[in-house]
């Protein structure tokens, strides 16, 4: 007789191996480990950067040196040794691929393992993929089609070379290097990332997508993404990643800036699956990301994220609702298992009149993990008739995990309407039994229930991404069959 109790479920979850763990053997060109002005100058000159960008880096470095790592998040970890990291690594082949046929077969294999066969994506889904292997973009597709519309979608480095005026105009305007410790570090040593510009009134006809991967051992990744939607433009941007299995902790400190000018809309979706560490919690990726967008009049930014990976996640995609009638949305699913720790949430800063924000956060904790939601809704003096709705739900899979909710509200305008709802529940034995009585295995039952639980968020994702996200949730939570 099956006596599949929640404790056994918990055990199964602990034994869940990282299913996407593999390492691609591509020669890397790495700068010496450690961080100093010389290393920053080296990175900048390797990338053939203009003087203003080197100055930007050096200033960020100076700021960073004055800062200390933040301690307020509900996470514990061995602090990274910032002098023990190599800050730049580029695949050795410097030649860019002319066509898909020229792409290194090993890299194609990697992409296959990731389930993102580019041929298929190009043909079937109309997704233009800018694949970032370590820090240099190695394949870009659909570029021509996009450029006909005046859309720029390229690696950050290319943007620096080809569109320096746009980069210089917008870079650091939403997240200055002084913002926080990790943003400052990124400002000093960022290697590459993506740049996207949608001209006035243009609706980007396809989902733009970038897959990030950490590859060379011991190389921190400092990505920088800048998305600018000019007046009345629309873009949906997808970011997803998996990382190979590793023994030492890998630091990931990205910066993502979104700029939605008047009447523009940016949808930014992330499926994050960095290596979470083994079941003792050893060797996972540290993910300290700063993501923020700014909305001018009548603009809208919507963040959707499905977070299943990383040993430690520290991430608060935020919106500055500067313009009147602007809208900010945050939809999040964060799954933690084993010893994973996630401290994630959002900040909605209401500056303009009639601004509106929505926060839907679903936290799922399994194993011995800790899952925290931290949200700040800030209504400034001039933000008349601001509205916020927040809903933060936590689902516990075991007795040993934790869910924490830290909602902060700062309201300086009495006309604001703020609603906050929060629930915590344990996965229902009644629900599991009901499913199993219908012939559904416990594994599938959990996946069904969890996917149902996250539906509001998953519904926000573009179709093909939603499917991937559901698979990820299932992988993160299913017990091994037996």
């Amino acid at each position, binding site marked *: 007789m099956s006596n599949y109790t929640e404790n056994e479920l918990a055990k199964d979850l602990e034994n869940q191996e990282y299913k996407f763990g593999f390492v691609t053997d591509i020669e890397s060109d790495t700068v010496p480990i450690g961080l100093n002005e010389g290393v920053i100058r080296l990175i900048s000159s390797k990338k053939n950067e203009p003087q203003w960008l080197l100055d930007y880096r050096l200033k960020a470095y100076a700021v960073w040196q004055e800062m200390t790592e933040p301690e307020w998040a509900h996470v514990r970890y061995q602090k990274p040794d910032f002098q023990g990291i190599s800050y730049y690594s580029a695949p050795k082949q410097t030649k860019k691929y002319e066509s898909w046929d020229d792409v290194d077969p090993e890299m194609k294999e990697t992409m296959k393992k990731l389930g993102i066969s580019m041929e298929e994506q190009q043909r079937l889904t109309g997704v233009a993929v800018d694949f970032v292997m370590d820090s240099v973009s190695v394949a870009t597709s659909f570029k021509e089609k996009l450029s006909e519309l005046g859309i720029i979608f390229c690696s950050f480095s290319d943007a620096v070379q080809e569109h320096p005026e746009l980069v210089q105009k917008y870079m650091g305007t939403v997240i200055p290097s002084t913002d926080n410790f990790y943003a400052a570090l990124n400002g000093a040593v960022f290697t590459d990332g993506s740049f996207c510009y949608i001209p006035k009134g243009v609706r980007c006809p396809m989902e733009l997508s970038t897959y990030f991967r950490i590859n060379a051992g011991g190389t921190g990744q400092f990505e920088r993404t800048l998305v600018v939607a000019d007046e009345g433009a629309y873009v949906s941007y997808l970011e997803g990643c998996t990382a190979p299995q590793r023994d030492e902790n890998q630091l990931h400190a990205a910066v993502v800036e979104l700029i939605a000018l008047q009447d523009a809309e940016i949808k930014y979706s992330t499926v994050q699956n960095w290596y979470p560490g083994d079941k003792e919690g050893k060797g996972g990726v540290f993910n300290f990301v700063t993501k923020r967008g700014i909305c001018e009049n009548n603009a809208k930014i919507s963040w959707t994220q499905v977070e299943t990976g990383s040993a430690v996640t520290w991430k608060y995609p935020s919106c500055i609702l500067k313009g009147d009638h602007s809208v900010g949305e945050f939809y999040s699913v964060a799954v933690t298992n084993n010893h994973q720790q996630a401290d994630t949430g959002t900040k909605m800063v209401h500056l303009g009149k009639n601004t509106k924000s929505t926060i839907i956060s679903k936290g799922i904790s399994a194993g011995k993990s800790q899952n925290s939601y931290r949200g700040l809704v800030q209504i400034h003096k001039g933000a008349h008739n601001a509205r916020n709705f927040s809903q933060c739900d936590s689902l516990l899979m075991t007795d040993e995990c934790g869910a924490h909710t830290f909602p902060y509200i700062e309201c300086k305008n009495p006309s604001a309407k703020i609603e906050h709802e929060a629930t915590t529940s344990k996965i229902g034995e009644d629900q599991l039994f009901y499913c199993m009585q219908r*012939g559904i295995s416990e594994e599938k039952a959990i996946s069904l229930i969890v996917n149902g639980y996250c539906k509001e968020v998953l519904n926000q994702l573009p179709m093909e991404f939603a499917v991937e996200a559901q698979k990820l949730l299932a992988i993160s939570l299913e017990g091994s069959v037996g």
Partner: protein
Amino acid sequence: MIKIENLHASINGKEILKGLDLEVKAGEVHAIMGPNGAGKSTLAAVLAGREDYEITAGSVTFLGKDLLDLPTEDRAREGLFLAFQYPVEIPGVSNVNFLRTALNEKRAYHNQEPISAKDFMALVREKSALVELDAKLASRAVNEGFSGGEKKRNEIFQMAMLDPKLAVLDETDSGLDIDALRIVSQGVNALKSPENASIVITHYQRLLDYIIPDVVHVLYDGKIVKSGPKELALELEERGYDWIKESL
């Protein structure tokens, strides 16, 4: 179909089933009546494989297999269906997605190909018509926000979809209005065949006007204490359970 012998089951150290015997043959409908707390739902849960219960003695043979040896989901895949007294809500999971998963799990167990989307939708249409289930309910999340009666009707819809060998209906009639009662009963009767059987747990002989049982059992204090033809239900309705207690 099913043979239960000397079944003892307890929960949290408290014995609820105390030597229960029951045999149901293919093609038969058995009704189980009995006072509140007698152990009717416990019997249903134990048969379905709810793990909170400890089986301390007895055996259950279902279609030649040792039922108690099978995990919950395999019991279902072998053809055991339980219509819950209190159906569970599963937010965000649509009824059709739920049922397609269930159906395909069952088919995989029997080495059958998954059902095609087209055949599945045809089946949904056919079976929802049978229990006059609103098409909107079929696509809504499982039982979420359903009225009490809608939940019960949904149980019978699921039963029709999964086509079980043995259905155990735990107070499916309670909470149903007169029309719903008739519709649900018609559904149950339409599914009746010489190859399947059902156990109908109820407090009201009214249901048995629609679903005519071959045998009526009285479950009292964890045991079947009296069995008889359908007239027994009428007698119980008139006289209550006291005379049975006294005759023990």
